[in-house]
């Protein structure tokens, strides 16, 4: 084997892509070729450096997001197959358990089937990733509000809150539990607030309930006939300010 041939095999050898015979030939050729031995050492050293980089396993939140999507799809999917008879009591017990858990999570689940913290954070994260922040970018509510018409089956109240420190950035559609909902995106300094809202199933206003969840601030309340769900990385006190400003502004012209 001449040197150019053995040189051309260094990578494939390190990558374990040579057949047993080719490997043996290559190793034999190496003995006579100090240049290629150096190359081999270099290739191994670089490979080792890359392999000691920390892995990036999927965060728990991502697991939760995907698990939820899969459950929604499996639940909404085509006709259920008949289940063996014994599964019925098990299934009933399971759904009772789920119902009990939902009841226990309690206050945060409201309106159309309810939304959990993970979902609110997911909505926020989709907004916070800059490429998909808004589908319609405008601080003018007369631009944003009509944009929703024809995209969802209700017309959400759209308010610009610049005077309160939360300028409107735009709107987008998000899918929560398999349903399309309107999301308004507000900016607050370097942060964004994602406000999802949809018609309330029950009448009456409630005052905003602000919570912290995995470092995010969440607010849930009902106002003017809409369920409001806000999520952001601002401090909880700023989230309370946001909710109050929104209620104030929506209240003014009624």
């Amino acid at each position, binding site marked *: 084997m001449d040197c150019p041939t053995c040189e051309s095999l260094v*990578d494939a050898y390190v*990558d374990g892509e040579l057949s047993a015979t080719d490997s043996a030939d290559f190793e034999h050729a190496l003995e006579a070729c100090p240049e290629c031995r150096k190359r081999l050492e*270099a290739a191994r050293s670089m490979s080792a450096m*890359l392999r000691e980089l920390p892995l990036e396993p999927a965060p728990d939140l*991502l697991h939760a997001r*995907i698990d939820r999507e899969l459950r929604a799809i499996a639940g909404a999917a*085509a006709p259920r197959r008949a289940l063996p008879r014994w599964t019925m009591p098990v299934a009933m017990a399971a759904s009772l358990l789920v119902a009990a858990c939902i009841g226990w999570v309690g206050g945060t689940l409201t309106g159309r089937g309810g939304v959990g913290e993970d979902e609110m954070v997911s909505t926020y994260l989709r907004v916070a990733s800059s490429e998909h922040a808004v589908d319609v970018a405008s601080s003018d509510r007369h631009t944003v509000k009509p944009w929703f018409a024809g995209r969802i089956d209700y017309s959400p109240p759209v308010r610009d809150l610049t005077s309160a420190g939360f300028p409107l950035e735009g709107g987008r559609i998000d899918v929560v539990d398999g349903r399309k909902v309107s999301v308004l995106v507000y900016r607050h300094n370097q942060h964004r607030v994602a406000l999802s809202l949809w018609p309330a199933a029950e009448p009456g206003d409630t005052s905003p309930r602000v919570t912290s969840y995995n470092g995010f601030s969440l607010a849930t309340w009902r106002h003017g006939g809409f369920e409001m769900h806000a999520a952001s990385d601002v401090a909880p006190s700023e989230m309370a300010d946001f909710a109050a400003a929104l209620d104030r502004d929506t209240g003014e012209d009624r």
Partner: protein
Amino acid sequence: MEAPKPDSAMVERFRAVMLPHLDAAHGFARWLTRDPVRAQDLAQEAMLRALRYFHAFRGEEARPWLLRIVRNTWIDSRAKAGVEQPLEMVEDRPTEAPDPEQNALAGDRRRHVAAALAALPAEMREILVLREIEDLSYKEIAAVLDLPIGTVMSRLARARERLAAALRDRLGRSGHGLPDM
């Protein structure tokens, strides 16, 4: 192509076959996007797309199959965002200047290696990640990137040369066994 709607049996099979590779999908997405939040979005979008295509999965190796979808989803999202550059033209992201006094520390070396890899053009970055971090064979890489094996080999060689040069700049020549070319 109109895919059949996934039923609950298919979702279950998908969970068993593909979910174990979510870490790989996310890791690859991290290196493609170089952004933790966008990586999660990309991995999620790719997972859902994989479910839609799952009816066409014929029991081949699951991880390359999924990584291919991650990459295609990424390319589509870039196209949608108006990024029209071909992969090889993607700008290098500026990275911190090397600090020779810190070079002795292994953790610091890792940081430099990560930064040098992140700064490579996407086309070189992805092939190195698939080979060295995801540990795919040439044949699997060829399937993920939709390239002939010969092109995989030449592209990999070029990526390694470029990374070696970047590391020589960052780490200095001595003691790292990197080739002088």
